[in-house]
Every structure is written in C-alpha cells, then in structure tokens.
C-alpha cells in the first residue's frame, strides 16, 4: 500500500494533495487501495456486467466453455498463455492440445508432444499410410456439473462454486492424489512445487474481474470461447442454441461437463 502511495506521490504531488483535500483521509486511502482496479479500468470488460458483481460467489450466472475443433490450428498459443499465467511446472499440463491423424486404413494416431506447447509446426512423417484426415483437440478442465474430484476429495479442498467453477483450496489440499485418479479427463496433477493438486481453473481470477480466460484471449482463430449461458446475448449461448454438432467428452461418465466441443469427432476420447 505504501508503495502505491509513494507512486501516487511521485506521479504528481499537487494532484495527490488535491485528492487528499478532496475527501477525508479514509476516503483518500480508498482511492489508492484498489490500485490494481484502477489499472483494470483501462482494460475493457470482456464479460458484460462482471465488474458489478458483489459477494464472494457469483450467483445467477452459468458459465460455459466451448472449444471449436473445426477452428483449432494447433498453434499452441493457448498452452503458452496458460503456462505463463500460472508458471505451470514442466511436464504438467493445465491445458494441452492433441493432434489427431487418421490414415486411409482408418488407423487413428494421436500425439501431444510437450502438451502441444511448442505448436504443431511440422506434419507427422512417421506414418505408414497416406493421411485422410487430421484435426486438433484442445483439452482443459471440463468443470463438470457432477465433478468426481469434488466427490472424492477427503478434506473438501476441491469444491464447486455456485457459479459452476470447480476450484482447489491450495491451503487445505493434503496432496493425496485421489482427485487425480478420479478425474475421467486427466486434467489434474500433483504440482511438484506446491505438493498439492492443481488443474485448469478457467482463469477464475480473471473472470471475476470481467476478463476472459488467458487461453481464450490469445487464441488467434477463436477456437476457444467462454461466456455466461444466462446471458442470451453471449456467443456461447448462441452457439449452444444453434444447430451445431456439439458434444461433451465421455458423456457416459455422467459428470455433465460444462466444456462443450463443436464438431467433436467420434475418435476423440
């Protein structure tokens, strides 16, 4: 806080004194406490109305994530953005991109070297038959309506918020790894640095500030989409209510993911 005050002072003593004089001492402190928020104001709100939300949890919203397989080009930008946002230790993945290749013998080849972090810059040359089809599938937390990880967590460290996020309280997690076993989508891992469970959060900290998840922001082809289904003007609402080919991963698990895929192919697990 002191640093913030000092910065304000150095920026212009006169302006600062004016501000102080303009209100009470407490009032002036309130001006400098949300220094981050002042910075945030310069960034346009990406999720309408989020900055007006009050309270620890958001109610009345239903967030959804959509991945459009027909758009993804496998550049790996989302993975890079994610790794930068969270400093994810090497060898662990909050999100990754898989490459599917189907040859003219109907063999399916899948790979995801380094989780697609380096982008798919070269085609696969190790396949014995001519390629008939290829596509990319980004993976991330499915934010299930019935999350197995929340069910099995013995201490309640993994929990579900009222707005549908599945999050981890890193100060409560004992690091038993039961959630890692229980997740049908293998989006969880034990973070070797924190020794706790870790996974994609759909950038909850950004969403709370009205910003889109980092991976959505950087996707150059808009293959990743995020929004509020209760907002009928949102893109996700429109996509899910139009006659697209839409599915979720492993529907027979009964977890009811909030992560939907446009153009999901039957080869994808």
């Amino acid at each position, binding site marked *: 806080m002191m640093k913030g005050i000092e910065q304000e002072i150095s920026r212009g003593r006169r302006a600062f004194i004016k501000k102080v004089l303009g209100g009470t001492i407490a009032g002036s402190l309130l001006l400098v406490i949300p220094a981050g928020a002042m910075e945030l104001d310069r960034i346009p709100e990406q999720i309408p109305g989020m900055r007006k939300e009050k309270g620890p949890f958001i109610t009345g919203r239903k967030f959804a994530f959509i991945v459009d397989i027909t758009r993804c080009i496998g550049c790996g930008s989302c993975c890079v953005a994610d790794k930068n946002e969270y400093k994810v230790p090497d*060898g662990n993945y909050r999100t990754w991109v898989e490459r599917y290749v189907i040859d003219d013998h109907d063999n399916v080849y899948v790979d995801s070297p380094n989780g697609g972090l380096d982008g798919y810059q070269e085609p696969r040359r190790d396949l014995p038959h001519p390629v008939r089809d290829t596509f990319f599938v980004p993976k991330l937390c499915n934010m299930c309506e019935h999350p197995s990880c929340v069910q099995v967590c013995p201490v309640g460290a993994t929990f579900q918020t009222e707005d549908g996020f599945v999050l981890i309280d890193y100060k409560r997690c004992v690091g038993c790894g039961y959630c890692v076993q229980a997740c049908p989508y293998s989006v969880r891992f034990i973070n070797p640095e924190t020794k706790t469970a870790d996974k994609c959060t759909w950038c909850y900290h950004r969403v709370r500030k009205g910003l889109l998840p980092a991976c959505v922001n950087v996707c150059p082809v808009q293959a990743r989409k995020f929004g509020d289904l209760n907002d009928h003007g949102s893109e996700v609402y429109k996509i899910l209510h139009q006659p697209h080919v839409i599915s979720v991963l492993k529907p027979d698990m009964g977890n009811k993911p909030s992560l939907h895929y446009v153009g999901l192919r039957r080869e994808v697990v």
Partner: protein
Amino acid sequence: MSPEHGAAVATALTNYVFPNDLHVHWSLMIVLYPYITGIVAGAFIVSSLYHVFHIKSLKPVSRYALVFALAFLAFATAPLLNHLGHPERAMNMMLTPSPTSAMAGFGYIYSAYAVVLILEILFIYRPTLVALKKKARGGMKLLYGILTMGSDNLSPEALRVDHKITAFLAAIGIPMACTLHGYVGFIFGGVKANPMWATPLMPVIFLLSASVSGIAGIILSYVVIRRYTNKPIDMNCVRTLIKFLWGCFILDFVFEMLELFSHAYMATHHWEALRDLYLGPLYWSFIVAQVGIFSVIPFIALGILSLVKLSDKIVMKWGSVLSAMILIQVLLMRWNVVIGGQLMSKSERGHAVFHPGFFTKEGIVVSIIIMTLPVVFLWLLSKVFPFWLDDDPAVERQST
C-alpha cells in the same frame, strides 16, 4: 516387415497417453498401504476363528495373531503419510472430512478398529499382564501397571467379565476387520474413471486377499519364530491354518479370475485397452508372476497339503514356503491393481511406464524400511506381551 513387427510398429505409433497420465501418482506407498491393512484384517480373522468361532486347534496362535495384527496396524498409515504432499494436514481428514469422499472414512474406520484391537489385546492378556507386573521392576512395572488399567483383580467374577468383554470385542471386531479391508477395496472400486478398478468385485477381492495374507503371515511367522526359539510347533494348529488358507485362497483366486473373466466376457469399449494392459505392461507381473507362479502353484499345493496325509516335516516346510508364496501373491496383486490401474491412460489409447526409484522418497529402500518396521515392532511387543502360552507366567501359575 513381418506381421508381428508391423503390429508392434502400429502399437508404438498409436500409443497415446494423456500428458498428465505419464506420471504415476500413486506409487509403491499406495501398494504397501492395502498390503499392510490386509495383513492386519487377515490376522484378526485368525484370532476370531478361535475367540468367536471356537476353532480350538487355533488356540496356540489366537493371542499371537492379535499382537501380530497390532504390529502391522501401527504402521498402516506410515506409507500414506509418506505419500501425502502435505502430511501436516493429514488430520484434516478427520477434523473436516468431506462426507462424499470414499477416502474420508479411513481415519474413523482405522481408529475405531485400532481401539477395538488394543482393548481386545489388553483384556485377553490381563491375567498375564497382572502376573508380569508382580514380577517386574522399575519402568516395566509402571508399563504393566498402565496396561492392566490399574486392576489386579483376577477373581473368577472379574475374569468372567473379562471374557464377556473379549467375546464382544472379537465379535464386533470381525465385521470391523471386514469393513476395514472391504472399504480399502472400495477406495479403488469406487473410481469410475478407471475401468480396471471400477468393479463391484474390487472390495470382495481385497477382503479375500486380506484374509489369505493375514493367515499366511501367521503361519509363516509362527513356524519361523517357534523354530528360531527352539520351541515345539503345534502341527494340529498349522494344519488347521493351512486348511483355512486354502479355503480362503480358493475364493480369493476364483474371484480374481472372475473379475478378469467378467471384463473379457462383457467386452465393453474398455476391454481393448484393458486387454492390452494385461497382455502388455502387466504380462510379467500379472499373468506370469501373480497368476501363473504365485497363484496356480499354491492353489494346487495347498490343496494337496490339506487333503493328503503327509508327514509333519513336509507340512511344516511346505506350509511355510506356500505361505511365503501367498504373501508374495498378495503383494503382486496390490502392485498390479494399484500401479497397473494407473498404467492404462484414461485416453484408453496407451500405457504409461513406471519404474520405482531406489533411494527416492517413495522408492524401494523406503518401502523395505516401512515393511521392516512392523516386524521390529512385533519383536518389541514380544518383550511385553508373551506370544505363546508356554512362556506365559499366568498360565504356569494356573497349572501349578
């Protein structure tokens, strides 16, 4: 290119493991955890066969089995604590448990079972402990004073009450021992994301394998300790134990094979991946070792020992060898379930690889230490609780 070679190349090309599945999170520690709790549950059942079901021939090991169970129970949580990322938060499982978690009940079930087992030992040993207290000096006298709970009353009336209490504890101990280990099986069986684990047979298999590991542990250690201390071995007791071991192992092995058969017969969309797992990474540890060597041989040989009239020497020798084989079989089963289940990626397109470290935190050396600790503790317990009736001062006093 030969067809076999072509198939191998295709497998290598199609092998896809989800990036987060490349690391096997539940290591050797989680192999040892159900192994140790299984031995505890099985040993308790041996004791209950005498105390509740009055199988008189098991009297020589009835008390020893309880102390044996306690020695292993004391270290059942050791591998778990070593495995946890934050062991300092372990008590949260009991203080703020999540009621929906299959794992959250372990602390309660384990603690309740520990209380029953300790009380059972103290009441069964009370006349012995009172006699030892009278002989003891210094610290040992104080220890026996605590263990006798301050009561030296050995009147027929007091012993009758003791007997009622021990009968009650043994009776509730059986369902508790079954719950303890059936529950451990459910921790795995309830993981729907893992098609190898997610079977209602899992608790049954865990419970039956627990019984055989406990009985085998008692046979082997009874014979070894009695021989090592130059004391006579009650062959009637050993023969009865072998019969129970065979009986339990018939059920155990049949259910283990039924589980595999069910997967193969129903052949759901998981089967292809499961078959590749059993025939691939688990070929040696499951098909060859667990089933071929350490199940089929004891299965037949225990039958022969149980049904054919053989000399005491042969029964003793082969009973011990087969018990050791059964102990290895159960350890292999734990390995194949815990590690094997994780080798199959949830992509169902490939298998991960796991090689336990040697000196790592959850490696082989630590595993050996953890498995040695109950044996050392058992030796310490032998200094306090005489295992056998022939070195029990209370029994001597009664007979003279």
